[in-house]
């Protein structure tokens, strides 16, 4: 099982006990980024679950059609990649 994305090498990640919040820190000097709500779910599904169908799983979590959120979800993870917080895994299959 390969996730679609992985945290960048110079990043630390902590997930709250209830899983609702993801804290992402640039290392070694910060800052800390707080992801909650949809941001936390997208991070979790993009980096922890299998690459296959990760956007579907995000959609399921909010009970909305994947087609309605795919563009936003992809834009979000790509912005995280652009900020150096996420790296795209080798074989990314979004849906």
């Amino acid at each position, binding site marked *: 099982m390969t996730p679609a994305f992985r945290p960048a090498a*110079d990043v630390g990640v*902590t997930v709250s006990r209830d899983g609702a919040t993801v*804290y992402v*820190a640039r*290392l070694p*000097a*910060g800052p800390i*980024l*707080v992801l909650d709500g949809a941001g936390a779910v997208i991070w979790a599904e993009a980096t922890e679950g299998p690459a296959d169908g990760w956007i579907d799983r995000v959609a399921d979590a909010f009970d909305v059609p994947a087609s309605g959120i795919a563009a*936003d979800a992809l834009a979000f993870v790509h912005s995280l990649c652009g900020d150096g917080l996420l790296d795209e895994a080798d074989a990314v299959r979004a849906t």
Partner: protein
Amino acid sequence: MAAREVAEVPAAGATVPLEVRIGFAHASVQWIADRCGADLLHVKGAALDPTLVPDRGFSDADVLVRPAHVARVLAELRQHGWELINSFAYGSSFEHSATLRHHDFGLLDLHRLYPGAGPTPEAAFATLWSERRTTTLGGRSCAVPARGAQAALLLLHAARGGADPKAARDVDYLWHRATDDERQQVLDWVDRLDARLGFSVILGELDEHRDDPAYDLWRVAARGGTRMEEWRARVRAARGLRAKAHVAGRSVLVNVEHLTIVRGRPVSRREVIAEFFDRPLRGAREQLARLRSARQGRNR
């Protein structure tokens, strides 16, 4: 999308819980150690095996650095947003740790030695390092001492805690409630770390070590004492005439770093001079108060 950067300093009401910040403090110093090829062990606090003392709180990150690598790690930390707020000489009577502060990650105690563990700081680190484990802190793989060693180190820490309820709770879990096997593991590590003097506090046998040069340091740490007694203990524990003279000379200097923290701003020359005079007087006042208290006790 729900994402925001947190820029405020650690404070009440901050959106990032303290334990998360501290986890990232561990991750930050580990990142730096990896980058500069330094060995360090994450101790106490977030790094503690959670089965040793349940629900034990913490307020900073602690790391023990291989002594030969301390200068390198300190220099790198200061290059990456960590500000030195208390240096070794003024950290404690054991002069074992420096305190650094980071805007996002909070406080870090960097230990160049672990009080009570020996026979030398280098040997103690090597012994602990030889049986290290790893745990994940702030998303980073971090080296920690073996479980039994963690218990021994925490008990040595508690031995310096005096009447601190947290120290008493640590002793309760790690020693009084421990199984015979767990106690034996602790004792094995105490032997390996040449830590019998410090550990004698836990066993109630400290006074059997009166002849040890470091006895007074542990006595003052465990039972309390005046500032004067603390400095006298430091001088007695220092090895060699040169070291003793160095400690004695420093005892009258002002800890400008500490003053800066207390005042929350850089201190002026006038304040440093005022503190220079006030500090010995404060020590004398404490001595007098103790003498009066003892006299009143005798007259009752």
